[in-house]
């Protein structure tokens, strides 16, 4: 990454590329849409709470999609909910990112064969950046997923959104 670890004689000057600065700002304050679906949401809440402390990565829950940068799909996506998720995603301002959390959101999970009401993977309606496996994933796994997303954002350029 970058410029924060470079040392200069004059402590007031930092030299950086604009896209590094933008990427750094984006990855350091990924405001999350507070949105939970099923048992994964319980783990997501545990990740947000003091013991695992999502806030140290700049993840703050926001009540409105208009203020959110990231949506964590935490749980089983039913067909009924899929339409609402799509609407929420479209309401988020760019740049926006998606973490698919747990087997259900990744692929339908245990509902993949007989789940008449379940969408078999949230990536059928919205573009997912990071998939976190697990049923449900432990908070450490979700944190790892977030770090992966931060790595992706760090490599973005102004010319092309790669994440």
């Amino acid at each position, binding site marked *: 990454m970058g410029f924060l670890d470079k040392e200069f004689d004059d402590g007031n000057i930092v030299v950086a590329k604009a896209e590094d600065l933008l990427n750094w700002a984006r990855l350091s304050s990924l405001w999350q849409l507070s949105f939970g679906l099923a048992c994964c949401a319980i783990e997501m809440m545990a990740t947000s709470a003091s013991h695992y402390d999502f806030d140290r990565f700049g993840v703050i829950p926001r009540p409105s999609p208009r203020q959110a940068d990231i949506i964590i799909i935490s749980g089983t996506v039913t*067909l*009924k909910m899929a339409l609402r998720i799509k609407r929420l995603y479209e309401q988020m301002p760019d740049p926006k990112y998606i973490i698919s959390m747990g087997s259900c959101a990744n692929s339908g999970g245990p509902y993949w064969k007989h789940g*008449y009401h379940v969408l*078999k993977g949230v990536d*059928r*309606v919205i573009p997912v950046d990071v998939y976190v496996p697990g049923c449900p994933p432990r908070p450490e796994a979700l944190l790892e997923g977030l770090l992966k997303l931060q790595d992706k954002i760090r490599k973005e350029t102004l010319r092309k959104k790669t994440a």
Partner: protein
Amino acid sequence: MKTPEEIFEILKNKFGDAVVEIDTETPVDKIITVDAKKVHEIGKFLRDDPEMKFDALMSLSGVDDANGEKVTNEEDGTFEYKGGTLSVYYHLHSIKLKHKVTLKVSVPREEPEVESVESVWKTANWHEREAYDMFGIKFLHHPNLERILMPYDWPGGYPLRKDYKNPEYYHGMKIHF
């Protein structure tokens, strides 16, 4: 406190042919079969009679008995049932008198119509909507018989029937894996 057998005798004397039989061979609950078009009257009696006082409808569940003729489609291996019955079970409990009873109605699969007991126990409102949603059992005189779990515009029938076939798409989303 009364046993299901005693309750059956009382109901039989009061409602005659509307009370069909009692099944005592079941492992746990004795089940009284009643007429689907009279179940709300029987329910009202069971709720209000001082010897019964069934003030709580613990559960109302639909069941696909799958006892009709099984017709298999040779080409794709799917099957459907012709004839046979769908059933509704009512688990009643009297908090005051501490006794329980189970009622059952069976209706033909092609025309599953049961009188609603929503006027007797308000609990029945959502339970009957669920039975309608999952099995297609029509509850007559229900105030708001809409789907409760599946989407309101769900195209594909009643999911918990044994011969249910999922539609391919819902709003452009592929359903099958």
